[in-house]
């Protein structure tokens, strides 16, 4: 798998790395136990500062997607997929809560917000169950 970065993008480079590693885990390209490149190697290959890659690895480690085993290196965690899913679920609750709050501040009732969410989800549900 390749990591692609775009330094002109609005998304910070470390977040681009985090997102692509998570995508790699979800797609199966980075299976549990997969040996990650060292910080220095990835920074060198991508012409980046070591601190940028180190920050991405710290975020991934805090999300328990990767684990550092001392001198042996850094690996994809055995239950990385579960942690990514749980983290994404938490993010979804938080982001939907923020949106629901904003919508209620605009004068919509909770029933209206629920109906709006269901209407927004309907096309996705139809796509999953054609």
């Amino acid at each position, binding site marked *: *798998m*390749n*990591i*692609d*970065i*775009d*330094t*002109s993008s609005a998304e910070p480079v470390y977040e681009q790395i985090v997102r*692509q*590693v998570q995508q*790699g885990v979800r797609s199966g390209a*980075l299976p549990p136990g*997969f*040996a*990650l*490149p*060292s910080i*220095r*190697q*990835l920074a*060198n*290959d*991508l*012409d980046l500062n070591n601190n940028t890659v180190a920050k991405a690895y710290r975020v991934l480690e805090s999300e328990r997607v990767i684990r550092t085993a001392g001198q042996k*290196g850094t690996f994809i965690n055995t239950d990385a997929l579960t942690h990514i899913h749980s983290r994404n679920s938490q993010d979804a609750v938080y982001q939907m809560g923020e949106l629901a709050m904003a919508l209620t501040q605009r004068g919509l009732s909770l029933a209206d917000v629920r109906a709006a969410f269901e209407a927004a989800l309907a096309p996705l549900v139809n796509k999953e169950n054609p």
Partner: protein
Amino acid sequence: MNTSFAYAVAYIQIVFVYGLMPAFFLRFVAHLYAIRNPEWVAQHPDFIPGKSNWRVGRWLFYALGVAWIALLTQFQRDAAAERLLAALYYPTSLWLILAMGYIGLEYLCVGRHIPPATKRSARFARRTLRELVHPGWLIACYALYGALFAAYLALFKLGRIPDFIFEARIITIAFVMVLFTLILIWGVVRKNQPGDDIFWGPSSRKFEVRFFVGGLYFGLAMFATHLARDGFGLPALENVSLFVAVNLLTQAFFLTMIIKLRRAANMGTLSVPR
């Protein structure tokens, strides 16, 4: 070994490396830096022709080639055996040193002024020596070098080789070992260059590292023949034959590089001025 044949190889080698190679090599070096950021280079079309030293470099190589041929003709006229050996390996060695120097000069004048591309990509997998070459080859190689050291030490203690030969051999062996080990490490850690794929495709790094391991074994074979001569009086490998063989292999290697560069140029991937 027929002396005329050895001289013929030396002449062809000079024509090869000083006549045919420079034009390809210098364009390739400029190309290597240009493809770091093709978009930026396209936006600044006068940058590389204005900064590159490739025309000066090319004529310098031609002039040196002519000088080597003149020198070689003089050597052949004098018919001195030790000069034949020098004629066989000095021109190529000097070419390699000059080539390395040119890469550095071109980096200072061109490469470092080209900003890195905004969109960059890298393979996301750990690179280790173990993946590029079987550890057994390296363990055996270093064990044999250890045995070589031990053999020289034993022969020295037994008084079969004089001090100055012992010191010279130990220093040379240690130098070759350290040099190749550093090159091996560099072969693993250095970042992928776009030019790598032109020569050997995606396996370029594996090829490169195995080539360096081959160099370690070649050094080992050379030192073993010296050991046989120093310690036991056995006839060492005839130097001229060895260097003729190495020169022929070098020519085959350079020819492959030229063919691959020609193909790359035909595909339009070499975008620097002719």
